[in-house]
């Protein structure tokens, strides 16, 4: 997209790290990259620093796009947990991205700090299969209880019935 006008937003000078973990800028938004071990401590530090609302907790499966840019020292894994926090006092947002490997798809829960993350973590478990240790009720939330598989993973097919005479794009993920 070389000839698309990119707005000349002045990128603020960001320190390389904050709260002890690497900090990057993503389209003018701050993103922290703790490791799984540093995850809870980082979020606790944010909570104590007026980020009292967990706006969103979700995950991304980078199976078919492993080469995304990450700061030094962070090794990419298949899953990434993305937490968006909001500070009402300071009117600021910040994002936390944690790498989670697929063979040990487990991470700590934020329920004790942010009770509102309960449903969001259940949805991530349902859609991706990532377990949250010490979550009060880790069951499927959107799919039926006996559903097999985790739909939002990249190796799970969309489940289209083939339609005649349509411009079917080649599907990005391999069929299950």
């Amino acid at each position, binding site marked *: 997209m070389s000839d698309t006008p990119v707005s000349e937003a002045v990128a603020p000078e960001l320190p390389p790290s904050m709260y002890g973990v690497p900090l990057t800028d993503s389209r003018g938004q701050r993103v922290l990259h703790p490791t799984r071990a540093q995850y809870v401590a980082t979020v606790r530090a944010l909570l104590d620093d007026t980020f009292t609302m967990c706006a969103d907790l979700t995950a991304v499966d980078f199976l078919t796009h492993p080469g995304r840019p990450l700061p030094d020292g962070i090794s990419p894994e298949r899953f990434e947990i993305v937490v968006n926090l909001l500070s009402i006092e300071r009117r600021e947002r910040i994002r936390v991205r944690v790498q989670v490997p697929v063979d040990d798809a487990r991470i700590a829960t934020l329920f004790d700090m942010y009770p509102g993350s309960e449903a969001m973590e259940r949805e991530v478990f349902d859609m991706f299969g990532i377990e949250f240790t010490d979550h009060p009720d880790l069951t*499927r939330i*959107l799919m039926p209880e006996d559903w097999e598989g985790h739909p939002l993973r990249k190796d799970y097919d*969309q489940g289209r019935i083939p339609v005649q005479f349509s411009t079917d794009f080649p599907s990005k993920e391999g069929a299950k």
Partner: protein
Amino acid sequence: MTDIVATIRDGNEAEQGLKPRSELTTRELLREVGSVLRMSEAEAAKLGDLPADPSEDQTMIINMGPQHPSTHGVLRLMLELQGETVLRCKPIIGYLHTGMEKQGENLTFMQGGTNVTRMDYLSPLNNELVFSMATERLLGIENDIPERAVWMRMLLSELNRMSSHLLFMATNGMDLGAVSMMIYGWREREEVLRFFQKVTGLRMNHNFIRPGGVAADLPVGWRDDVLHLLEMIPPRLEEYDILMTGQPIWRDRLQGVGVITQDEAVALGATGPVLRSTGLAWDLRRDQPYLHYDQVEFDVIVGTYGDAFDRYAIRLNEIRESIRIVHQILDHMPGGDYRIQNKKVTPPPRARIDESMEALIHHFKIFTEGFKVPEGEVYVAIESPRGEIGCYIASDGSATPYRMHVRAPSFVNIQCLPHMMRGGLVADAVAVISSVDPVLGEVDR
């Protein structure tokens, strides 16, 4: 057919259901309650579980929904009752799960609006707006959207807020027994939908706000239509005030029902009228302004008691504030383009396709292959009638989003239901759900 019938099981979803209080450990019970207020277990124990009547120490678990006239869509609630008092409540969702996020990964950014707009189907333009804003942020063109497009987006967004709140008044009234309110609310909403049909071509699920601007210009005579709306609705709102706000029955049914405190609401992530009813004046239009909301004057309506009546009053007055904003938009609306003139993002005008080969090719490529969006990830949030709706898009440089996630306000607000219903009567459960105003399309996506 028989195969399908045979394989349909009891459908009990036992694991997703509510376990009786007697089967839970004390720690689990206290965690349910205490963590919300960020208390230790000892302090939560002092909150007191509701006094158990020694002669009636058996609790009942009943199931409400998913098909029920009083739940807003297919929401299933499991309530643990002691007599008529609700002890615990668990919402079970997923009955409208549509796989929209998965589908969004296979639709181009131009088609993404059709998908996203059906999530919160009561305010579809807001869904499209947040998706378009996230896409534009990734493209880097968020400051280049023409003025007319921005003001048009604001106009449509505010009118959508009005139609959504009018529907809230209608369904809230009907849920509480004021059936004529249903007819009145729909009557007003029809007028707004008629305007939408004139502008966007559809009454609902418009796919009108697209990355780069809007899909088409405002039709001739739109100003008169909007003025007609703005003249017609305020006197009707006065009627609702007479019918409901001052009426003792209405007040008794709503005041003190479904109370939530400010700490609870913030801890649970509730936003929108639910959060504002607790007294916290948080409105993204004012606190993190997007579009040109910093150039219009409006008040943020705030409640005091955090009960259902406050939420009703907030929404009623938000309609009035929206009317005020629309008046100002009418004054500000400039001329100009209705979408960014960037050949790679927005299709060329139809007339040019006959003249220019390049225009034809761009049109073809945009609509079949889609425009490519540079790699990155972004989260953009706006204020929908229900709260903060956010769109998180992670792009890998191709023409379809790599991951498209929508943070739905109702999904998070529904977590407030157990805390609102605790200690209340089962007959108030309907009032509580109605006051939170969930839309199951965005809860389940």
